[in-house]
């Protein structure tokens, strides 16, 4: 029983990372109806930036926040430069191709700049175990960080005029323009936020998976599983889904399929959701009277 609780708790910790990345994916999806395959690579690249800043001698939290800011700007720039030209066209396949291009470019650029050799990425939290040995200091810390970030994102979208405008732009672009919202900039801000969320996820997972250009591949698959489980168009569903996938991955990995086959848990979740309930657990059930 104690072992089970241990698996659940550390599952929640990694679940926080999946939840952040899943939320980033869903934010872009809500605005564009497209899944950004490069979300993980954007996070990986941001983590390399953080590593570089640390390597230059910057203190951890300084590098942490500067990286988030850079990732935000990076997200905005990517949207303006490579996504914007396709914004008004209906060519879904073109944008998907752009996503794949971004994926490859960021992946190769990171490898070319910083080498493919695995790097150790530091954790700002104490290394010993806490909570009576249930969690490592890093796991508890990352849980705290991801929960705070998710809470901030919630407060932003729920209570600020800009958050409301971003939601409006995603729901109904034409009406948004009619009330004076600059819709295309809202999309860019959405990309910035998604980039920043990804950067947090990347910096928090890097001490566990180590830093290398492909570090986010598995993480993104778990995040996709979380987003689908919660409902790809529901941000809070994605968060719940992310945590759930984290716990399931750990528990199944320990007791059912074994650690080597852990990743298959994510794939099984993805396929099960798509077959049994494509809208996910909390997929949109908007009531409309016609």
């Amino acid at each position, binding site marked *: 029983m104690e072992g089970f609780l241990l698996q659940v708790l550390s599952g929640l910790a990694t679940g926080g990372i999946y939840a952040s990345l899943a939320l980033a994916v869903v934010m872009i999806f809500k605005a564009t109806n497209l899944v950004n395959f490069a979300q993980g690579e954007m996070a990986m690249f941001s983590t390399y930036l953080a590593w570089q800043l640390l390597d230059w001698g910057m203190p951890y939290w300084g590098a942490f926040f500067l990286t988030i800011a850079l990732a935000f700007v990076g997200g905005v720039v990517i949207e303006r430069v490579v996504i914007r030209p396709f914004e008004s066209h209906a060519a879904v396949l073109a944008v998907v191709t752009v996503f794949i291009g971004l994926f490859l470019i960021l992946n190769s650029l990171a490898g070319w700049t910083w080498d493919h050799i695995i790097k150790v990425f530091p954790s700002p939290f104490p290394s010993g175990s806490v909570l009576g040995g249930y969690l490592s200091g890093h796991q508890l810390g990352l849980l705290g960080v991801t929960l705070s970030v998710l809470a901030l994102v919630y407060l932003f979208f729920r209570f600020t005029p800009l958050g409301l405008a971003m939601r409006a732009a995603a729901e109904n672009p034409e009406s948004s323009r*009619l009330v004076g919202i600059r819709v295309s900039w809202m999309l860019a801000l959405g990309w910035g936020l998604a980039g920043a969320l990804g950067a947090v996820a990347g910096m928090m997972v890097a001490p566990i998976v180590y830093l290398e250009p492909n570090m986010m591949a598995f993480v993104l698959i778990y995040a996709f599983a979380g987003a689908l489980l919660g409902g790809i168009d529901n941000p809070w569903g994605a968060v719940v889904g992310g945590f759930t996938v984290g716990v399931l991955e750990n528990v199944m990995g320990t007791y059912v399929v074994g650690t080597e086959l852990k990743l298959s848990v994510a794939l099984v979740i993805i396929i099960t959701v798509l077959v049994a309930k494509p809208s996910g657990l909390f997929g949109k059930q908007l009531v409309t009277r016609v």
Partner: protein
Amino acid sequence: MAAILDAKDLHAFYGPTHVLHGVSFSVEPGGITTLLGANGAGKTTTLRALSGMVGTRGQVFFDGHPIGGKATEAVVRHGIAHVPEGRGTFAGMTVEENLRLGAYTQKDKTKLNQDFERVYNYFPRLKERSKQQAGTLSGGEQQMLAVSRALMMRPRLLLLDEPSFGLAPLVVQDIFSILRTINREDKVSMLLVEQNASQALAIADHAYLLETGRVMLSGTSEKIRNDDSVRRSYLGY
């Protein structure tokens, strides 16, 4: 008196399709002008052209400023509010959030609260439903919400696209009488597009009759109402 809105030789295009063929019209300050015409005459397109939602050519002046060809977000900032065809409410958001979005360009908190009070005063029903999802409102309530949202930006000109569409006659009367009040008390000029010609002529002071993207007839509502061909084709008696 100089017109608050003056369109000269306005053309509009949906992609390569030429829909408006040089329409000219104006709205007097504090007045209500209506555009009449059958389906496909170009009424909605004219409003969309004014708001920069379709490709246009020609000149449009709002209060002396050229606004022709400007982006929608820029036109709005001149004080032109557009209640689009089909109401265009944010269905997934609450009534209150819809109104808050209408006031997106309003940064003054005191004015914002005054405006909330003002539209809730016009439409008490919306106050009762302020926490309800807009998509769950009835058609009439959604139209009230659409008009209220437009009022939240304190427009000087209101573009109304078929406010009577799909509503019961009693609700239509309600909405039109409130539109008249808004026009008189808040000095909001209006450009009204309607299929319901008799209702529109009753509230408007000037009217233009559109046919296949051209102005066929124009004048005071009085004159248009008494025109034989209009009476036969659009008023039905």
